[in-house]
């Protein structure tokens, strides 16, 4: 079952084409990791998958629905992103995690919020003002507020970029326990992609070079550029 279906998709900023994907299918419940050098279009792809922007050209189907300005709010609400630099409200950590539920008008008890905070190791931070958090803590709060919404797709942009090894392990454990949630994980860490993903894709200058099951991506890639990227040689 496909959750996302992208066809002949191009996305431009002004004159510049930053994404050019002929076809990309993302299945229900899989973990896809996207790797690629800085500026290759990874975050932009997540923005499209989150419907923050509509593709300049081509089609993006979510669960069979075309992503355009008429995309129903209900569909949009089934996807959540944890951004590279999450923006938190100037409120308590608890309020931040509860925010999505409040926006939806879903009744919730404090234990729901506390459970989500517990999963990211921040149970004791509920009353702390979000503004005072460190980068890594903020990132984990952002993950908790995404998890509490129980999304059908979870988009993660460098979710462990600011974290120490212990918390990286914690977050990876959460991703591994994603259940039926589809996860699209953007990471600069190829080892993380290897540890977590069912399939791994390489983006170079907005093009999807290849998207393969993780073991094949790392052991027998078809494209030489994939191999040199894995080996840490710069590719442009």
């Amino acid at each position, binding site marked *: 079952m496909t959750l996302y279906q992208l066809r002949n998709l191009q996305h431009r900023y002004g004159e510049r084409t930053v994404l050019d994907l002929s076809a990309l299918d993302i299945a229900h419940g899989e973990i896809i990791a996207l790797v690629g050098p800085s500026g290759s279009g990874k975050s932009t792809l997540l923005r499209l998958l989150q419907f923050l922007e509509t593709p300049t050209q081509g089609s993006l189907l979510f669960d069979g629905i075309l992503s355009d300005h008429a995309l129903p709010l209900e569909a949009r609400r089934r996807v959540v992103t944890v951004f590279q630099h*999450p*923006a938190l409200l100037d409120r308590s950590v608890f309020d931040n995690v509860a925010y999505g539920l409040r926006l939806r008008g879903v009744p919730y008890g404090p234990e729901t919020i506390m459970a989500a905070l517990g999963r990211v190791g921040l149970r004791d931070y509920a009353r702390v003002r979000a503004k005072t958090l460190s980068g890594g803590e903020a990132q984990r709060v952002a993950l908790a507020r995404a998890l509490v919404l129980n999304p059908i797709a979870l988009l993660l942009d460098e979710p462990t970029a600011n974290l120490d090894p212990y918390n990286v392990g914690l977050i990876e454990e959460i991703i591994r326990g994603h259940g039926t949630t589809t996860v699209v994980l953007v990471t600069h860490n190829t080892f993380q992609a290897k540890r977590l993903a069912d399939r791994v894709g390489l983006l170079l200058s907005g093009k999807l070079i290849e998207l393969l099951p993780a073991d094949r991506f790392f052991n027998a890639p078809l494209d030489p550029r994939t191999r040199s990227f894995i080996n840490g040689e710069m590719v442009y």
Partner: protein
Amino acid sequence: MLPFRAHLGQTLIFSASGALLLFLVLPLFVLLARAIEADLLQQLTQPTVTQALRLSLVTSSLSMLITAALGTPLAYSLARHKVPARSVIETLLDLPIVLPPAVAGLALLLTFGRRGFLGPVLETLDLSLPFTTTAVIMAETFVAAPFFIRSAQVGFANVSHQLEESASDLGANNWQVFRRVTLPLAGTALLSGLILSWARALGEFGATILFAGSFSGRTQTMPLAIYHALESDLGSAVALAAILILISFFFLALLRLITHGRIGHPML
């Protein structure tokens, strides 16, 4: 001990600041003192005074409501959307700020007057605008709205797009994003724009006298009433002026207090 030149510099700064401050504030205090002398409270019961006061408050408040209701969407569009000929529009919006109000009044008269550009249309609708209370509100809105629009536009432009996106990412619909993130974050700029435009409306004279005339109880706002009282009765002119100063000071201080506490963050 500071060196001599540093002393001299400080003395210069203090005396320059003091002189200007005195120049700006002294006349206001003299006026207030004269008003107390002339029995301000007794003047307050005069019908010309109460009528002018009521008219000023009503028209400037209505003008502020109209400005906020129609100006907010305009400011938002200018800040956020691709607007064709944006800089032309912005320059045109700034014009009423720099033009002498008399020019505004004349322009309104030529447009909405009986023989004006829209005169025939208004006549078929059986509407006559000049020299009515409506004309007062129109004149005030015309000269005051740009202050609000420009301030609100800057406010909207400064709202972090990232915060709006994360609200939308967490499932906020467009209205929720606007209501819960954009509006509170732009709130300070919106309020200070409202202060400015309201104060401008309250002090409006030139456009009003040309387009609405000076009919007691109907179009004679406080500034006009002061002008007319000068001819007959200095006492009530002073009283009216003092009241205008006090009201303006009160509202400016009040709104300053409100905006000060709200240099804003999105509210849940």
